[in-house]
Structures are given as structure tokens and as C-alpha cells.
């Protein structure tokens, strides 16, 4: 025993000397592997490859096809970002979908039935939504009830109110005629308009994108819903990763008690995040109302689940404190590509739900594994 010990110790010591160098490389790779958005980015690549093979010649990747699935992704992405930020902050909001319907009515009814200018109706809707988000958050932090239950209550309250109030004020559940009112309104253009029309005209001119028989380009501009998605993605990602408030969000969701003990105003953080999800829902509602020219009481049905799924696919942990806005955006992109891709490829659209559920399950398993990597001593 005593003879073999020194000889065994010598190589061990030599190994431990360049140990650090090797550890460094491993940890860099490991850090990359434990980024929350890794799963959704690789998922998005796989999905693109898949549809490039099965639907490559269907027009899915022509200019109008791209616009088609990008728009669907953007619609989900906007509320996915809100849901993701809130989840990182440790809470859920199941009332996002109902909020979309309610906010839509808060825009359409004043604009069409009460003769308000559209900009005023929009501001009214945003203030109303923020107030509801505040109430939601206030109840959660003051009562300590799970946000799951509180926002579930709001899911029903808001949906019920949307239908009841629109019937009370207008006698119908679909309120149209917003287009006429929005004509020339400065704020309406920020949600219903398009940008970059000249660019697409030029691209069509030089033959880079296709045209209709009458010579108009297939794509006339980028809808504002996509612009909002990109804008929110950049701003929120920056806020989350690079600001004090972002650090507070991670801390609040990671361990609210610990955060509070070192002086993070966790209640304020949570309430503001509930307000932000309501804001996101209203942005989407405004884009839809001003694009379609109408509000419908059933709009946004089940969207809260899709938003949460996008956030989870994007790497957000259900327990809070971990996640990524970029990840949630890729989660939404996967959604849009698959939902539209299934049409382009000519599959039965029922498969979309099957795919959705499977994707969610895989994402949660993957996230669990990542969390273990991040938090367990090695």
C-alpha cells in the first residue's frame, strides 16, 4: 500500500496542474450548452429543414409565404414575450387570451359607437389594460395566492365581460367599421399600417420578389405586427439581460424571499410584469383590430396557453428565475412555421396540435436537464 501510493499520486498531481486549462474549455462549451435559448434555436433549425424538404416547392419560402408565417409567429411572439418575462419573474398569466378580446373591444366600441377618435380609443384601451394588469398583479402579491388561480379567475371574468359588455353597448359580438374611423389617424397607423413599401416595390421591380398579374409586388410592406414583435424582442431582451430591472426580474423569479431580503422590490417587479403582459396583449389586439377593421368577442381564445408554450419552448422554467426573450421568440417562430407549414405541405391541420403537445413535452424535459446542469455542483 505505502509503496504504491506515491507513484499513484504523482500522475494525479501532474494532471491537476493542467486541470484548470481543460476545465476552462469544458466550461465555455458548457456555458453555451446551458443557454436557455439553445433548445428553441435548434428546434427552429430542425423545423425549417423539415419544411424545406417536404414543402420547399410549395411557395412557403417565397416572399408572400415567408410573410405569412412570420405574421403568425409575430402575433404569438408579442404575447409570448410578455408571458416569458412574467414567467421569469415567477408568475403566470392565464388571462392573456381574454385580455386580447377585451382590449379589442375597448378599442372598437369607443371608436365606432361613441365616436371617439381612434387614437383616444387606443389610449383608453391601453390604460384599461394596464389597470387590469395592475389589479391582477396586486391581488397576486397582496394575497400570496398562486397567480395560476388569480389569472384563471380573470380569464373567465374578462371573457365574460367582453361578451356581456359588447352586447350591452352594441347588441352584437363582432364590432366592425373600424377601418373608416382609422383613416388618417396618427396612432392607428402604428398598429394597422405597413412599413417599407418602397423597398418591396423596388425588390419586385428588379425581380427579386414575385408580382401579381397587375404588377403589384406579392408583399406590399411589413405589417406593424412584425415591427412590434421585433421591437419588443430587442427592447425586452436588452432590459432583461442588461439592466438593473432585468436583474430584479431574475432575482424575483429565482427566489422572491432572497431577493426581498437584499432590497429588491419584488412586489413592484411582479405587478409591473403583470401590467406588461396586459400591455403585450393590447398591442396584439390593436394590431388585429386595425388590420381586420373589427373586434370580435371571442378573439384570443386559448392564446394564453400558446404564449406560455412559446415561452417554455424558449427555455423558460415553470418555476421561474430562468428563461430568455430570444428563446421565446424562437418558440413563437417554431409555432408559426409549423402551423403554416402544415398547410403548405398539405398535411391535415389536426397534426398541428399533436405536434404542439409533443414539442411542449420535449421542451420541458430538455429544460429540466439544462436546469440540473446549471445548478448542480460539478
Amino acid at each position, binding site marked *: 500500500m505505502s509503496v504504491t501510493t506515491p507513484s499513484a499520486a504523482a500522475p494525479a498531481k501532474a494532471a491537476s496542474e493542467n486541470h484548470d486549462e481543460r476545465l476552462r474549455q469544458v466550461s465555455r462549451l458548457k456555458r453555451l450548452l446551458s443557454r436557455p435559448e439553445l433548445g428553441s434555436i435548434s428546434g427552429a433549425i430542425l423545423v425549417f429543414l423539415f419544411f424545406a424538404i417536404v414543402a420547399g416547392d410549395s411557395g412557403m419560402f417565397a416572399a408572400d409565404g415567408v410573410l405569412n408565417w412570420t405574421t403568425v409567429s409575430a402575433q404569438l411572439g408579442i404575447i409570448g414575450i410578455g408571458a416569458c418575462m412574467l414567467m421569469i419573474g415567477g408568475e403566470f398569466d392565464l388571462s392573456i387570451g381574454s385580455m386580447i378580446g377585451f382590449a379589442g373591444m375597448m378599442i372598437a366600441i369607443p371608436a365606432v359607437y361613441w365616436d371617439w377618435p381612434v387614437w383616444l380609443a387606443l389610449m383608453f384601451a391601453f390604460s384599461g389594460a394596464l389597470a387590469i394588469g395592475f389589479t391582477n398583479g396586486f391581488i397576486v402579491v397582496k394575497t400570496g395566492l398562486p397567480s395560476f388561480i388569480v389569472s384563471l379567475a380573470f380569464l373567465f371574468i374578462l371573457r365574460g365581460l367582453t361578451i356581456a359588455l359588447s352586447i350591452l353597448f352594441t347588441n352584437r359580438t363582432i364590432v366592425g367599421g373600424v377601418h373608416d374611423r382609422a383613416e388618417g389617424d396618427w396612432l392607428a397607423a402604428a398598429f394597422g399600417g405597413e412599413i417599407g413599401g418602397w423597398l418591396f416595390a423596388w425588390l419586385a421591380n428588379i425581380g427579386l420578389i414575385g408580382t401579381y398579374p397587375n404588377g403589384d409586388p406579392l408583399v406590399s410592406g411589413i405589417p406593424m405586427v412584425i415591427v412590434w414583435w421585433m421591437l419588443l424582442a430587442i427592447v425586452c431582451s436588452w432590459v432583461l439581460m442588461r439592466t438593473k430591472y432585468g436583474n430584479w426580474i431574475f*432575482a424575483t423569479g429565482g427566489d422572491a424571499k432572497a431577493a426581498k431580503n437584499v432590497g*429588491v422590490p419584488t412586489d413592484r417587479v411582479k405587478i409591473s410584469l403583470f401590467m406588461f403582459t396586459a400591455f403585450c396583449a393590447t398591442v396584439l389586439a390593436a394590431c388585429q383590430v386595425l388590420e381586420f377593421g373589427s373586434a370580435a368577442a371571442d378573439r384570443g381564445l386559448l392564446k394564453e396557453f400558446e404564449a406560455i408554450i412559446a415561452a417554455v419552448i424558449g427555455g423558460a422554467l415553470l418555476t421561474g428565475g430562468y428563461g430568455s426573450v430570444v428563446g421565446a421568440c424562437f418558440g413563437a417562430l417554431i409555432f408559426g412555421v409549423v402551423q403554416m407549414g402544415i398547410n403548405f405541405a398539405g398535411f391535415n391541420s389536426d397534426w398541428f396540435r399533436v405536434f404542439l403537445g409533443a414539442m411542449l413535452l420535449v421542451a420541458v424535459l430538455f429544460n429540466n436537464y439544462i436546469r440540473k446542469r446549471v445548478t448542480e455542483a460539478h
Partner: protein
Amino acid sequence: MAEFILELQNVSRYFGSVIALKDINMQVKMGEVHCLLGDNGAGKSTLIKTLSGVHQPSEGVYLYEARPVRLNSPRDALDHGIATVYQDLALVPLMSVTRNFFMGREITKGWGPFKRFDLDNANRIAQQGLADIGIHVRDPEQAIGTMSGGERQCLAIARAIHFGAKVLILDEPTAALGVKQCANVLKVVAKARARGLAVILITHNVHHAYPIADRFTLLNRGRSLGTYLKSDVTREEVLGMMAGGAELEELEAELSEFSRADQNKVANA
């Protein structure tokens, strides 16, 4: 400047019908380690939560630099330079060393809407702050979850020291640690004292407390048994005064009784 930085006069704290603290008097001096001793449920955690603004006294006066204060939140206490390292350390395992170090007190650069968390500087400061007390981290962006208990304890202390704590309150810093890590943490406490901080240290373990403490306050079932200077009491006296001290003596007596009986048996056989 007042002789005592913190002073409690007849402070009580009730939770509904539970009397967690009753008529506590206590004085804390700069440059001293003040040790709170007591059994489970004696009220040690409640006392330091009162000192650090988590709870407010139900009765009695809290003096800071000889002036009565009311600390409404841990933030208030921090602004007075009273920093607490809780039993749960107030660290978030999923967050990086740096993000934890600066949690709630992020340094920023830029102005207006472009004001941002200065991560490069923060990384450097966190690494340096830890190195100053003898902890070397390879990567300040690694998650805390990967660090050992002792390292986390030291990180929490380094954080408090860095943010200009005048009073450092430590709740059972050595509870879950091995011998070596324990010694490291106590060394860090000594460094803090050498910098002139007042340290309030909670422990069950007299053997950890005695070598480093300058003053002891003993708690028993929510009441204070008094404050003693180390020069006035021996380790055994402190042990004897602690709740359970009597039981320990009894246990020792019983054990020696057993061993005598055993010896008798051996002798008889």
C-alpha cells in the same frame, strides 16, 4: 459618535399570541464580534430580523447611533449600513456569481433610458471582492448553484462588506459547514472585525463562537439572560448558561457513570 452603533431597549416582538421576544436589551459596538447564543426557537432569528428591518418591534425602542429609528424594510436597514446574511443566504442559485453579488444594488452606467447594468465592471468587482477574503472563482458568470456551501457563505459576506456594511449580521454562518470551511468563514468574520465593522453572529455552537466573540448575549425562550464580555466569562460558564447546558452537564455525568459501571464490570469479571 455614539459609543454603541445599535442598541435595543426593552424590545418585544409578538406574532399573534406567540411571544417571540420579550424585553430584550442589547448593545452593539463597532469593531466587535457580538455573539447571540440560544437554543432552537430561542428567538435568535427573530431578533436579528428585528435588527435588520424585516420585523418591527412590537414594543420597545431601537436606537441607531443613539437615535431612535424605525426600520420598515431590509432596504431601510441597508441604507443605514446594517447588512444581514440570512440562514438561507439570500442567494439565487440560478443566477451568476456577479448577478447575485449585485442583486438589489446593481451598478449602472449610461443615462436616462440607456442606463444599464455595468456587467463588465460588476464581474471584476465581484471577483476582486471575493479574492479579498480568500475565495477565488474561476468564472464570475457561473451560476451560484455550482458553488459549495462555504463559498456561498463567503460570497454573501463579501457582498455585505463590499456594500459598505457597518454592521454585519450573520445567522448561523457555520451551521452546515465542514471543519475547514467553518474555519474559513470565521477567518472572514475576523477580517470584517479588523476592518472596524460590528459583527453580530448567531450560533448554537459555543466552540465556534468563543474563540472569535468579544461579547455574548444569551437568549432563552424569547428572553435575554444578559450580555457578557468574553473577559468576564469562561467557555464553560457560557455553555452552562445556555439552555440545554444543564442537560449537557447531566448527560456528561450520566456518560461518566456508564463508563464507571463498565469499568466495574471489567474489574468484577
